[in-house]
């Protein structure tokens, strides 16, 4: 079904985004002719040829809805690379099974360094002390009385896509296994500046040590300027109270910054003039540069994208068939300006369509029609943010870091397409 009007926008089969509409019209015309042709005599009983579910009463609904029984296999994946204790766990979201820009809360990625605490919300308190005029505490009921703001933002672990950062050869992973440590949600809560201003920050204050009420008392040193800008004490995720896996009853949310800094189960803010060099800012969440320097406090998650449809370990069902290449782009510094896609390993590129809404520090959905020519090829996506930051190639990214440094990997993802239509992780 090759339409002569199809407009190519780059080599390898990338098509103008109006191509789908053109061929869709052709399909629907054919379908309605068929429907008329099959219009025979009226049956004596209408149920005869209908599926069974149209002939029995439906089931009762339940108090808290769940996905369809046929979708129960869509689950988070527990990474094998983390030390094998139940307390340190890394759960990846199935990006290739999602559309849009919101990750269902139960599928949101999570990384726990000390398991999930069971916090009694009636006894939980948020404390502010240190370089403040009035040390204060807030219980949950009090915090809920403050005005709240909502924002749709991505959250990404600094270690997302680490296998591609350190492995000399591309590992045959799914998109979920490789890059499933990024998710998107609507986060709602109280701007932290209200609470900090109420306590009265002293002029000397530069940092705040933010601590969780978990067994390991996870702590990060966060610059006070970020907390006075767009940080919130998040109480809701996607319209419901945040889940234990995301920090119930409250977490710090610092839009655009590495996941680890978004302290879950937050209970204490110590305002200081210096960072504390906590465990994670001393070791796991630092970057080792090519010159041997150890870089601390690289909070921003830089511009990045990944094609989710098609992606690793999937198989294209039809040669010369039409596909909608679709994926996600995001930047911790602002909005996505454009995403380019290549279907010939980077020789030619075409602009993908950005789906609304395109939001600040949010997942942004892109798509472009593609006709797979049935040949071996490589699909790439390259995002640019509103400040002009462009995703590097893997080689460009690698040049900046030591061979074992794996945080903040944001290089262009390449998916190899074999003659048989098998999609696999590759380097270009």
């Amino acid at each position, binding site marked *: 079904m090759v339409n002569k009007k199809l407009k190519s926008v780059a080599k390898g089969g990338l098509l103008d985004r109006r191509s789908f509409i053109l061929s869709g019209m052709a399909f629907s015309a054919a379908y309605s002719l068929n429907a008329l042709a099959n219009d025979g005599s009226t049956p004596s009983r209408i149920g005869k040829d209908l599926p069974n579910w149209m002939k029995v009463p439906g089931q009762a609904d339940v108090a808290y809805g769940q996905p369809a029984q046929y979708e129960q296999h869509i689950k988070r994946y527990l990474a094998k690379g983390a030390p094998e204790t139940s307390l340190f766990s890394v759960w990846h979201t199935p990006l290739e099974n999602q559309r849009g820009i919101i990750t269902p809360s139960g599928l949101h990625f999570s990384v726990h360094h000390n398991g999930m605490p069971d916090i009694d919300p009636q006894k939980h308190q948020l404390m502010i*002390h240190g370089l403040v005029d009035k040390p204060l505490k807030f219980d949950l009921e009090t915090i809920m009385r403050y005005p709240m703001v909502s924002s749709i933002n991505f959250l990404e672990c600094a270690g997302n896509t680490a296998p591609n950062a350190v492995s000399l050869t591309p590992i045959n992973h799914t998109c979920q296994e490789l890059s499933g440590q990024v998710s998107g949600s609507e986060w709602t809560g109280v701007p932290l500046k*209200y609470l900090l201003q*109420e306590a009265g920050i002293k002029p000397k204050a530069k940092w705040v040590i933010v601590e969780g009420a978990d067994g390991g008392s996870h702590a990060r040193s966060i610059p006070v300027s970020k907390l006075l800008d767009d940080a919130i004490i998040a109480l809701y995720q996607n319209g419901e109270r945040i889940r234990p896996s995301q920090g119930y009853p409250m977490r710090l949310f610092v839009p655009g910054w590495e996941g680890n800094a978004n302290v879950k189960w937050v209970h204490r803010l110590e305002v200081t003039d210096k960072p504390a060099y906590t465990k994670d800012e*001393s070791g796991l969440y630092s970057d080792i540069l090519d010159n*041997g320097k150890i870089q601390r406090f690289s909070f921003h998650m830089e511009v990045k994208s990944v094609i989710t449809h098609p992606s690793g370990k999937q198989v294209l069902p039809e040669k010369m068939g039409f596909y909608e290449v679709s994926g996600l782009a995001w930047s911790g510094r602002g909005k996505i300006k454009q995403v380019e896609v290549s279907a010939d390993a980077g020789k030619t590129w075409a602009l993908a369509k950005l789906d609304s809404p395109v939001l600040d520090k949010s997942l942004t959905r892109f798509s472009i029609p593609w006709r797979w020519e049935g040949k071996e090829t490589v699909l790439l996506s390259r995002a640019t943010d509103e400040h002009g930051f462009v995703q590097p190639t893997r080689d460009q990214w690698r040049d900046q870091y030591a061979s074992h440094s794996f945080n903040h990997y944001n290089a262009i993802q390449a998916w190899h397409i074999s003659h048989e239509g098998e999609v696999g992780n590759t380097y270009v």
Partner: protein
Amino acid sequence: MYKRTRHLCFLLLLMMATSSIVAAEAKTLSLALGEPLSQSEIRSYSITIFPDGTNLPKGQGSVQQGASLYEAQCMMCHGESGIEGPAARLAGSDGWFSLSDPLRVLRIKKYPILLISVGGLWPYATSIYDYIRRAMPHYAPKSLSNDEVYALTAYILYLNEIIDDDVVLNDQRILELSMPAKARSISAWVDQ
């Protein structure tokens, strides 16, 4: 950002309207709902120790005491010499496992996070003390005494050849130590 500002303005207008109806004499509606936090509460919860020694408790512990504690409470996760895992590598330079390590390939494949070590990357010994005291051992955090934490900190420093095996670490000595990673450290954060 525009939307958020508009949302706030709306709330403020609403609050102003409410206040003018409910309490006509009040010009603004106070949002100061926080309760005072007492000094004793701060003392119970304030556990963060800073590289300059702020909040470091008095106490002491020896490398030898640390070795016994390590064997009993830490070795099952961190390995006999602090490099075997599966939990984070405590000793050695950061980077790929040594070529002389017979299990190198296996370790890299199974535990890629073990690439980095406490001795190789951490710039301050106070951070080792802070983390052990708040989070270790993993199965019973906050169960060690301040002196036991000094002993274990001393043992980790000994495993990294930063102190000798006869050292007794205390709240003065820990501040005099120099970690090799400090000279390599840079900050990506420039306060705007």
